[in-house]
């Protein structure tokens, strides 16, 4: 007979083996599943770190773009906190060996630089920038494992040569940003060009119909809120836009395109999302006034001022400055010239020969550096340039001093409620144009007027600026202000390199026999400070992820 006790004991052994086997099986499954989960988690963590790094890197790029939107010349005003150390290489300026540490001011005359590593803590490793919002451990001196650190390099815009409009040499401001999370290997590098579509990117903008006459050869974009016509057919090397029809199309060169709202060309809405409406610019202009009067700009707001004269010039030390004069009397109508038109012709303290014994009687008010934010606002009609003041230079050689722009500034006169004119009273030239980063925007809440006496003995009036006549048009004054006989010398020439935006069209042709409306190609990549934007924001071009640059240590 079988000893059941033995059997029972043996069964205990079998049960143990069975249980152990089962546990081993389950354990194997658990181990495999755990391994699978761990692998998945590692992948997820890696992915999360990649995403966090790219998000932090892009955040710093966007931060820089926001700064450039507010100050279009931020990159020549400052070396950003996240930049590497700059070394000036510009042979055009005497700045040999000039260097700029991160978070320091930069000399804006230097627009060609290279970079070197910064190692302020002398630990043998380049210093990276940790923005407080990306500094997980709260200690900027300690790169924690979850901290995101950034280094960036900035390449200033490159400009087209106006002499060779067919050759595309230009490039917008480019920023390359490298981000890392702690000492981990997944570093990311992105670069992008930062572009804000400004009104100044057009050589001509009107809200109404626009017609170009004989010999119109354009090098910049043109926009008309109505119809656009070229009589006879000219040429253009840039896109043309009409909300209505393009009645006669110019010869389109260099891949220029035509856009209209009539369905006869490319759809204008594919390029310009909403029709340009000058009423929409008032908000931008209010910002300029606010920046001038409450944000560190120059605010010329004296209650007794009837006129302001602003003369941009280069002083003996080579610095750009703004000399300001003020008038306090109110002229009365003289013959066919009304009190407003008086300023068109008598904006200089000189005997003009046209209206005897009258002048603006300017009194010196102040001599200013260019404001950091580039904003100047005035509460009265504003004259730009003084042809016979002690300070000034006659670059154009016409016997009259020019307004020489050696800085970046936007001068805005009046408000929507109290519109004022801007009178251009001297040849207006950008220092070192076209290789300069400096720009000037002239904005009249009413009209832009050229003083005909500023043409000078050379019979050339030269204007390098972006101008905006918000309410009406731009014109050359005549002996009855808006009407009457021409006051410019016979066979005079108007040379514009810039951008002209007026709600209505102009009254120029009767005063200048030859009119050259050239686009300043720099304005494709630069805009005067706070100059109105078309879509209110900046955008990227050529945003791309790149291989890590050589200066990044693995």
């Amino acid at each position, binding site marked *: *007979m079988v000893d*059941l006790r033995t059997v029972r004991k043996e069964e205990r052994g079998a049960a143990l083996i069975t249980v152990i086997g089962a546990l081993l099986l389950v354990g194997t*499954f658990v181990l*495999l*599943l755990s391994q*699978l989960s761990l*692998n*998945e988690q590692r*992948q997820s963590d890696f*992915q999360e770190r*990649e995403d966090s790094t790219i998000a932090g890197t892009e955040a710093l790029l966007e931060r820089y773009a926001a700064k450039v939107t507010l100050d279009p010349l931020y990159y020549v005003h400052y070396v950003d906190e996240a930049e590497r150390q700059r070394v000036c290489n510009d042979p055009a300026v005497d700045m040999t060996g000039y260097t700029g540490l991160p978070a320091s001011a930069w000399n804006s005359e230097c627009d060609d630089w290279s970079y070197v590593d910064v190692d302020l803590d002398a630990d043998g490793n380049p210093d990276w920038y940790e923005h407080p919002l990306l500094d997980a451990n709260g200690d900027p001196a300690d790169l924690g494992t979850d901290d995101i650190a950034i280094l960036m390099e900035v390449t200033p815009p490159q400009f087209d040569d106006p002499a060779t409009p067919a050759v595309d040499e230009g490039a917008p401001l480019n920023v390359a940003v490298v981000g890392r999370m702690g000492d981990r290997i997944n570093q990311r590098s992105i670069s*992008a060009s930062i572009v804000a579509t400004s009104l100044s990117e057009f050589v001509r903008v009107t809200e109404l119909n626009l017609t170009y006459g004989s010999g119109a050869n354009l090098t910049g974009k043109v926009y008309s809120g109505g119809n656009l016509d070229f009589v006879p057919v000219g040429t253009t090397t840039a896109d043309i836009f009409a909300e209505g029809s393009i009645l006669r199309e110019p010869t389109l060169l260099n*891949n220029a*395109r035509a856009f209209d709202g009539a369905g006869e060309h*490319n*759809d204008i809405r*594919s390029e310009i*999302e*909403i029709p340009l409406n000058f009423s929409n610019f008032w908000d931008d202009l209010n910002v300029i006034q606010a920046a001038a009067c409450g944000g560190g700009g120059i605010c010329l707001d004296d209650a007794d001022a009837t006129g302001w004269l602003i003369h941009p010039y280069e002083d003996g030390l080579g610095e750009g400055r703004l000399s300001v004069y003020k008038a306090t009397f109110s002229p009365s109508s003289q013959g066919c010239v009304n009190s407003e038109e008086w300023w068109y012709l008598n904006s200089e303290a000189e005997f003009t020969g046209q209206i005897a014994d009258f002048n603006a009687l300017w009194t010196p008010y102040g001599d200013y550096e260019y404001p950091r934010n580039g904003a100047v606002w005035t509460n009265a009609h504003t004259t730009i340039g003084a042809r016979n003041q002690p300070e000034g230079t006659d670059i154009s050689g016409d016997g009259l001093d020019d307004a020489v722009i050696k800085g970046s500034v936007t001068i805005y006169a009046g408000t929507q409620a109290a519109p004022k004119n801007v009178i251009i009273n001297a040849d207006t030239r950008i220092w070192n144009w076209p290789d300069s980063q400096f720009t000037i925007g002239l904005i009249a809440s009413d009209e832009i007027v050229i003083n005909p006496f500023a043409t000078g003995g050379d019979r050339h009036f030269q204007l390098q600026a972006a101008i905006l006549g918000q309410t009406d048009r731009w014109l050359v004054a005549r002996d009855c202000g808006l009407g009457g006989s021409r006051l410019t010398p016979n066979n005079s020439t108007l040379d514009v390199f810039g951008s002209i935006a007026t709600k209505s069209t102009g009254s120029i042709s009767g005063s200048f026999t030859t009119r050259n409306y050239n686009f300043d190609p720099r304005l494709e990549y630069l805009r005067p400070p706070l100059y109105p934007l078309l879509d209110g924001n900046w955008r*990227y*071009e*050529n*945003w*791309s*992820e*790149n*291989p890590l640059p050589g200066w990044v240590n693995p």
Partner: protein
Amino acid sequence: MSIRRLQRIWRAEEGLTLTELLVVSLVTSIVGVILLGMMGSLFNNVGFQFALGDTQSEVRPELRSMIVRIRQAQAVGNTAADDPVSALSWDRLVIHIDTTPSATTAVEQELEKVEYQLVPTIINGGIQMYQLERRIYDPLNPTVRPLNYAAAPSETTVMLDNVIASAAQPLFTGAYFDAAGVEQSVASCAGINCDITQVEIFLQVDPSLTTDNPRIYEIEEEVRLRNG
């Protein structure tokens, strides 16, 4: 029941009654079936989790490379394709990017045309399966604008197998924000009508290819076109 009585039963050699045997067999069968079912389910789940894991491991890098490329897509600057996305439908996406940023030759330095296209493979349980292919087209002449591209791809890569999609469940969808800031969806577009700012990817992959209990790996991504 006392221990003594149990010991008596244990010592007893009368055997088991038919009823007892039947009860024991029944109980054993029920327990066995339950255990086998549990084991089968466990094996099935474990197998599927492994398949899902494998699929996820395959999908992640491919999806990542697709996202990286889509978000840096650029317009090539001609009237036929002046937006980063030049064609989009439920099974196809065409973008232009520089696929070789470190390249030195003129052709490689220019923007290539990259096409993501679903190609039908098998029908499994009534569901059409696709391969997701990436095709790269080189510019014909990189120095001439606007860029034009070769008709045949210079490179074709099968990114993923067993992809499920349809017009009702599109792999690619476009989106943009209108003037009122409301997101508008775009099911398909081509040429100058592809003025979108975002591409949405809804990727479904069947890792098991079983018809009785199909479980699908799904992942959704929204990619903002940085140059859009």
